[in-house]
């Protein structure tokens, strides 16, 4: 299934590995920070709702 990349196989594969690694890392970090802040905000809003009745 792997295409024949010839003498430039290392260059092509490393370009794909680095790029996809960076993109996946960015997506994961963005999702994690969003989830963390969503939970923190929900907690504070619930706490203030209880305090204010």
């Amino acid at each position, binding site marked *: 299934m792997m295409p024949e990349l010839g003498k430039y196989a290392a*260059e092509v594969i*490393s*370009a794909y590995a680095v*790029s996809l690694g960076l*993109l996946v890392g960015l997506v994961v970090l*963005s999702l994690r920070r*969003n989830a963390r*802040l969503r939970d*923190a905000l929900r907690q*504070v809003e619930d706490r203030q709702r209880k305090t204010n009745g």
Partner: protein
Amino acid sequence: MSFWEFANPKRFMQLSSRLLPWVAGLSLACLVVGLIWGFFFTPEDYRQGSTVKIIYLHVPAALMAINAWLMMLVASLVWIIRRHHVSALAARAAAPVGLTFTVIALITGAIWGQPMWGTWWAWDPRLTSFLILALFYMGYIAMWEAVENGDTAADLTSVLCLVGSVFAILSRYAVLFWNQGLHQGASLSLDKEENVADVFYLPLLVCIAGFVLMFLALVLLRTRTEIRARRLKALLNRERMA
């Protein structure tokens, strides 16, 4: 519906929560199809060999590195003129995405350049202006982190964005201004002679669509995060004052 409805954080959160799954799904579909098509099902170039497959990452990343900064420029101008917080937060949200695309363009360019030009790096006009653009992205992100007051940070980063736009535009047009550089002309052109060959063109277009949609999805997601962070900070301040 007016465009300015997006300036209301509550309205933005509602609209973006509906849009985000579609944009993210389409982006993933385009990236998977475009990259698999480009990597597995396109031939080698008669001069570049298999390194031609790097264009499916390099060209869309470079294109979006510049366009991300231009989107930040528009959002910064909206902040400066109309003082809509969502626009300043959208610019802040776009910066790490733009930086990632710039780094991908620089790294993939270097990996391609080594076998094709015989060097990882040259102080070529386009490469140099791209490196400066990456430094502007880093400075922009650092300034947001360094300034405590959100409005002051938005003002200062907006000015930085205006200055950095010169390099974003230079990055785009450097190959036209100076002919002595190593970097070749644009891969996509309306001129059939200059455009990449048809066999590479369609998968490249799909990859570009994937990168554009990925940028949009990440900016929507990260702007939602920034709106939440701002509200959290305001609520915690209110608690402290009470």
